[in-house]
């Protein structure tokens, strides 16, 4: 029997968790306080949020994993203990880590452990080593499909079991940003600006344009692309059947610093793709359609990473995102009328008119994208809503003051 793969989505805030749930994720992963690799870039959760994350995920039948994947120093150990006690108390399903202190404490507290990609596990001996303390191992992102397959085959052949007693599971990244260094081994940001990527403070030194100059002659070398350190993003929607066939158990989407609409779109595409493989309806036409949808949200251009055995990386051609759509902030939530299921929003910038596509993000909705057909502004039918206006529209879930309203526009790239 074919095994069921798990789709694991990133969550940097509560609206992302809801988006992941709506889009059909089987599990989410999140970070708290300063002990995760996205401390600079995401809003982040606090220790107090652990309970709410657990309750929300479990009520929706998905798993929640806590990422504690930074380098740990002695001064972090007490905080680490406090966090792990909360994990235990609220039954978070597992901790993802690469530091031995975290692994040791998880063992002590009997908390299921997943070995992070930061540990760069690249062969079956290493997998066997980690099986003694974990249930899932996230492979290094630099392996090829063949190498993955050899590892999963070895797990079955040698009957390598994790702490739970079940066969050890293998997790791989399927989508999102790639690192120009072997994951977790990059010190560029630390050297350039004291900002350690391994403490979640990466300033993305690699994402800039560079020139190569001969120091002796001062002559500039000609290179065909100035973004020589910035790999394109990983996208495996076109080879997802091969990944599943390689025997991996968990498919992970990168992006804890991305917004709810990103989580929604990417998770949904991969959900559909996995289900299509399952149902035997995975076709080239569908792949093309998914690729088009994936391109609408943040990306640096796509390639299949190292999985197909490319000898060198593919590099970004321009700064920032190549997304084909852009969201423009227009306002925030104000009130909700539950009986008639209508939400009220304050327009704070720009304007909206009938025909515009809007995006609402918030902890109750995740990310909802829809087209405005008619407008009710300040209680009356109108053709346009401007700054200072109150816009009401039907919304299925409760609108909160923390909700954000955006206009979606097409982004044209030269």
């Amino acid at each position, binding site marked *: 029997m074919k095994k069921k793969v798990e789709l694991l989505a990133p969550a940097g805030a509560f609206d992302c968790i809801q988006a992941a749930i709506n889009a059909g994720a089987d599990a989410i992963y999140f970070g708290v306080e300063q002990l995760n690799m996205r401390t*600079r870039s995401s809003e982040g959760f606090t220790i107090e949020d652990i309970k709410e994350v657990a309750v929300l995920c479990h009520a929706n039948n998905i798993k929640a994993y806590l990422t504690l994947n930074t380098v740990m*120093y002695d001064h972090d150990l007490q*905080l680490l203990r406090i966090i792990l006690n909360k994990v235990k108390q609220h039954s978070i399903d597992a901790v993802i880590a690469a530091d031995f202190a975290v692994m040791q404490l998880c063992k002590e507290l009997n908390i299921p452990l997943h070995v992070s990609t930061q540990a760069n596990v690249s062969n079956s001996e290493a997998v066997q080593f980690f099986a003694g303390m974990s249930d899932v191992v996230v492979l290094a992102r630099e392996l090829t499909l063949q190498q993955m397959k050899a590892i999963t085959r070895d797990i079955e052949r040698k009957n390598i079991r994790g702490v739970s007693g079940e066969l050890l599971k293998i997790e791989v990244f399927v989508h999102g940003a790639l690192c120009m260094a072997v994951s977790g081994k990059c010190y560029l940001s630390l050297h350039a600006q004291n900002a350690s990527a391994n*403490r979640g*403070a990466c300033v993305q030194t690699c994402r800039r344009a560079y020139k190569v100059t001969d120091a002796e002659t001062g002559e500039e070398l000609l290179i065909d692309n100035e973004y020589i350190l910035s790999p394109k993003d990983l996208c495996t929607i076109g080879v997802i059947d091969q990944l599943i066939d390689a025997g991996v158990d968990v498919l992970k989407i990168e992006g804890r610093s991305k917004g709810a609409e990103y989580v929604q779109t990417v998770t949904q595409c991969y959900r559909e793709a996995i289900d299509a493989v399952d149902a035997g309806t995975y076709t080239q036409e569908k792949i093309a359609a998914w690729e088009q949808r994936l391109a609408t949200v943040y990306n640096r251009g796509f390639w299949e990473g190292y999985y197909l055995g490319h000898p060198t990386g593919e590099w970004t051609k321009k700064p920032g995102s190549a997304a084909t759509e852009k969201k423009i902030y227009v306002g925030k939530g104000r009130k909700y009328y539950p009986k008639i299921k209508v939400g009220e929003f304050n327009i704070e910038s720009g304007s909206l008119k009938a025909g515009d596509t809007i995006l609402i993000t918030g902890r109750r909705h995740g990310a909802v994208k829809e087209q405005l057909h008619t407008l009710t502004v300040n209680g009356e039918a109108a053709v346009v809503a401007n700054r200072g206006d109150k816009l009401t529209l039907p919304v299925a879930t409760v609108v909160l003051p923390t909700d954000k309203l955006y206009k979606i526009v097409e982004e044209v790239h030269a």
Partner: protein
Amino acid sequence: MPKIVHYRNKCIGCGICYQQQPLYWRMSKKDGKATLLNAVTKKDVQLLDVNEETAEANRSLIAACPVRVIKLM
């Protein structure tokens, strides 16, 4: 009088301030963040009146802190 300000809630506990100026900074074992010694703390912001010399000694931290939560006023 100059003032060192530390926006403690955004500190990521990387330890650079303590490594560079151990006379004025400690890493808290309680929550893993940096603590400006002898400072008054108001709503997670630490404030310390200092003389010119101490201000000078800490000036390089403004740029050294990776999340820019140390300021001189």
